[in-house]
């Protein structure tokens, strides 16, 4: 078995009396899409936040590229190549679409300490940023203020910013949410190709997308992983059907 790129082991996080994540272990192997599904409030975003460094776990570890990064900051993990997208778009709304991807390119290059040279004149950054826009179909919107984008376009921009980082692993929190049938289908096709570049840990409610894309699925319910397996295994799992897929026993 190949070494996982990203591995969470026994992550536990409580908010007061609420155990949002309870001994959660998931890993991400090279070339795969590992989907995490579960009902609202199951703890999926809490898990992502711990993996990416935004929340410190009460216990458990996170390993990335073979290194224990449990105590590392979001910044360090990002620089190591962890590319995150947010469930609720976190974009600079007053800036243009191009500026948002330029920020990603700037982070990737790791040199924001240039004070007088216009960022647009840096062709390395600009090429990287424009390539990400082209891949997500946002080229036309480059000069648009981000606040003026539609909801779906903001979701695309989230993915575009992650692309500029050229990450070693993607962690995406519901990238399809609110995209509409057409948009979901396009993004599904795109993620299908993307896994060749870097594996994707994909939190998603859209079951068509999950069943179409996932190499493996983990089901999270009340902060616990109740099953991990292939699409067929998860579809056939009684416990999952009862707990999540809404079928009566």
């Amino acid at each position, binding site marked *: 078995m190949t070494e996982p790129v990203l591995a969470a082991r026994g992550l536990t996080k409580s908010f007061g009396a609420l155990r949002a994540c309870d001994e959660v272990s998931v890993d991400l192997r090279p070339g795969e899409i590992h989907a995490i599904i579960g009902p609202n409030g199951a703890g999926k975003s809490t898990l992502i936040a711990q993996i990416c460094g935004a929340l410190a776990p009460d216990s458990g570890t996170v390993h990335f590229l073979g290194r224990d990064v449990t105590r590392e900051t979001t910044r360090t993990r*990002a*620089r190591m190549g962890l590319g995150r997208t947010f469930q609720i778009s976190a974009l600079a709304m007053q800036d243009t679409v191009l500026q948002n991807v330029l920020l990603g390119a700037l*982070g990737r290059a*790791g040199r924001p300490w240039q004070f007088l040279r216009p960022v647009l004149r*840096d062709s390395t950054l600009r090429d990287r940023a424009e390539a990400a826009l082209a891949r997500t179909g946002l080229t036309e919107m480059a000069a648009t203020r981000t606040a003026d984008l539609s909801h779906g376009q903001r979701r695309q921009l989230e993915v575009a910013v992650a692309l500029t980082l050229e990450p070693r692993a993607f962690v995406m929190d519901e990238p399809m949410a609110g995209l509409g049938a057409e948009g979901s289908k396009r993004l599904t096709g795109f993620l299908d190709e993307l896994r060749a570049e870097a594996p994707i840990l994909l939190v998603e409610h859209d079951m068509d997308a999950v069943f179409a894309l996932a190499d493996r699925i983990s089901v999270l319910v009340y902060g616990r992983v109740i099953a991990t397996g292939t699409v067929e295994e998860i579809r056939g799992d009684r416990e999952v059907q009862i707990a999540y897929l809404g079928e009566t026993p």
Partner: protein
Amino acid sequence: MNREALFNTAVLALLVAVPTWALWADEPFTITLATRAVIFALAAVGLNIALGLGGLVSLGHAVYFGIGGYAMGILAHHAQSYTPLMEWPFLFEGTKSMPVIWLAAVLASALAALLIGLLSLRTAGVYFIMITLAFGQMAYFFTISWPAYGGEDGLSIYVRNGFPGLNTLVPIQFYGICLALLCVVLWLNWRLAKSPFGLALGAARQVPQRVETVGLDPMRLKLVALVISGAITGLAGALFADLNRFVSPTMFSWQMSGEIMIFIILGGVGRLFGPVAGAALYVLLEHLLGGINEHWQIFLGAALLFVVLFGRGGLVGLVAGREQAHD
């Protein structure tokens, strides 16, 4: 040219035309007023880098203004009394040379901004405002109780400091120096806003978690912005003290901090010429209304209320509309 560029050009044209007219009409007081406006504008351009670009609501920028003022006062005081600033470990004498004074003012206020930033940037929102305000008050009371440099009475300088090749005692020449510095700093501000640093800082203001997710440190970006901001306001402080040939603890007062912020709100937060338009308007109102009624600040308060409630983008916003997305 869009409307904002036109507006900016008009403001610059006025800053050249009014003093030129005053020179021709032999109205030196008007030149002094214009100098005051330009120096205030410079102080506010400094704050606008922290506030407009970085979203840092610093209500203590009088600290940097005052440090710049005292840098001038202390250096000139030692020069005119022929006493060295210190003799050990090396001889350090006072000076009457503006460029040297400016350098000292910029370095001292940048250092202060670095220390204050390290201590205050861990907080946000109203706590940040209160901490910056508290630092201002500390500096104020410190200078009041520092008899070596005049304490409450401040320091007077007999002759304005010199600049190579110019006679700074001629009002229009000193005005020229101040306007040139303002233009240089505006140019820096303009470039800064378009630079990689400006892009990252603007994002750190809007969505710090995004900045971290791309591997950058929003805190460090804001710290550097505060240092640049403080240095510019410090330079303005040195010029202000030179204009008055006098420096006193009032330069550190919270009212001073408030005024610098008012210039920006009047003119337009985050707009390149916002602080310039705001400071000019303020000095004009102060002159016109101050002559009619000593409680002129009531009218200023009303104008400010109007801007905050209806103008949003200040004077620049009123004339040029909502800020264009940068290219």
